[in-house]
């Protein structure tokens, strides 16, 4: 090989290496996200403050605010949920441990109690074991996840917040959202009426939650997800303590009116590994016992 060829190959090889190395150095926001997700998976207990709201052309049509205390090790949890649906406010409280679940709604002052059966407790235990993957399986899933998200990894921006946490953000505009996401969202919105019809029996025994369902405008045309903004907050211990998602959907309904829907969900984790679920003392309270239905599909 003569020197000209050799030097051309050498120089281009060096440049190639430089290109690859300079490109791979910038994906740190994504790496921090992965580390924090892996770490947060192994949390035993937490307090989560979850808020969600749905806006239709800038009017809030539905909002949920809940405070959940979960202790996975003791299999107990409690949550208070308040829902504002079309201006009407209602509160629901849930308590559950491995023996019973209790539900209290602001509609009446009765406490609905369902005894957990032995079998179900076994099932959930088994399920929990399945959830913790083997190291190899986790690595495979990670590799696939990496390959699927490679075009988004470098769009994750990170910012240092004044409280010491790091904020990660992924802001996707319409053309960056994969077609599958568009398809699922538009399918969901176009078929809303059929879904609510089927699930009208959902509830906890005699307690029905039908009035807590949001009334989302029925979109028929030009449905598209115009923007998705995801934010995560990682604390100095590398736990993912805050998550926020804003989804913007636009479309027109049957009468041709244009709707811009904004779904906002945020969740803040707190008291990691230090949370104990609230308990309820049923003494002196009106208790309604709820039986599992025995017609094949219980719950």
């Amino acid at each position, binding site marked *: 090989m003569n020197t000209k060829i050799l030097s051309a190959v050498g120089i281009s090889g060096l*440049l*190639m290496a430089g*290109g*690859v190395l300079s490109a*791979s150095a910038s994906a740190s926001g994504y790496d921090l996200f992965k580390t924090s997700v892996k770490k947060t998976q192994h949390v035993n207990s937490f307090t989560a403050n979850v808020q969600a709201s749905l806006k239709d052309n800038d009017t809030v049509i539905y909002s949920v605010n809940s405070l959940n205390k979960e202790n996975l090790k003791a299999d107990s949890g409690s949550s208070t949920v308040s829902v504002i649906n079309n201006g009407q406010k209602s509160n629901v409280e849930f308590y559950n441990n491995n023996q019973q679940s209790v539900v209290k709604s602001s509609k009446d002052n009765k406490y609905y109690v369902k005894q957990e059966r032995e079998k179900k407790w076994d099932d959930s235990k088994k399920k929990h074991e399945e959830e913790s993957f083997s190291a190899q399986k986790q690595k495979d899933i990670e590799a696939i996840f990496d390959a699927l998200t490679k075009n988004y990894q*470098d769009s994750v921006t990170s910012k240092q917040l004044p409280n010491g946490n790091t904020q990660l953000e992924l802001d996707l505009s319409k053309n960056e959202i994969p077609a599958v996401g568009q398809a699922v969202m538009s399918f969901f919105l176009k078929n809303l009426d059929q879904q609510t019809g089927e699930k009208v029996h959902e509830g906890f025994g005699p307690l029905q939650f039908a009035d807590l369902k949001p009334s989302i405008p029925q979109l028929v045309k030009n*449905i598209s997800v115009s923007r998705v903004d995801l934010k995560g907050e990682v604390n100095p211990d590398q736990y993912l303590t805050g998550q926020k998602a804003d989804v913007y959907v636009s479309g027109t309904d049957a009468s041709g009116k244009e709707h811009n829907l904004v779904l906002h969900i945020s969740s803040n984790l707190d008291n990691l590994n230090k949370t104990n679920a609230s308990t309820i003392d049923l003494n002196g309270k009106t208790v309604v016992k709820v039986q599992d239905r025995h017609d094949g599909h219980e719950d």
Partner: protein
Amino acid sequence: MLNVRNEWMKLIRKRSAIALLVISGLLPLVAGPIINVLQNRFSFTAFDGESFPLVMLSLAVSFYLPLLLALAISDVFSGEQEQKTLSFLLVRPISRMKIFKSKTISTGLYLLALLLIICISSILSGAIWLENFTVHGLFLAVVSFMLSWIPLMALGLLFMFLVQWIGSGSRALTFSIILYLAMMVVNFLFPGLARWLPTYDTNWYQRWINSGLNTLVMGRCLYLLSWCAMFYTLGYYKFSKKEF
């Protein structure tokens, strides 16, 4: 330029090449109404006029175009050697450098022509059949198609270098396809290694859309261009030293 016209004619006047160009143009035109019907029947909107060309492009760059590129390259080099027509070219008073250059340029032009045809027909199809067609979408589509030329050409230059060892068109094609599939597998299974292959960038237009011109995109640009330079040089070297 010397011999480019000659090579271009050889590439484009083949019956198979004409058929493939026509098919490339027809596929998006047919896919548009089919998607329209499916979306109406199952009531979802995955693709609208704005995103349809990009969806077509993502399919084209991951399967269709690498295949067609491999086919063209195996014809231009190994195929001609097999048919013994390359010797006629070599006795003309043109340097091997110029012959190699003209073959590379005409392959690049062929790839550009394929991209343009798919681009135009998918934009048309999206505008006619699907709702929500915008000027912004048109602009994104044209830029994305043009950007896709670079990673595909990098892949093509690698094929061009490697088929120098193969004296039969069909074997060169099979080899190129297997090589491409292997690179795709690496892409999914070994993300660390994948960064060193041009297949990592086949849908890099998505990265341009997502984040514009940042360090990563600049790095990948530098990588792809130097990859092209390296395999062009190596390909030429092998071609010039080859005995026919």
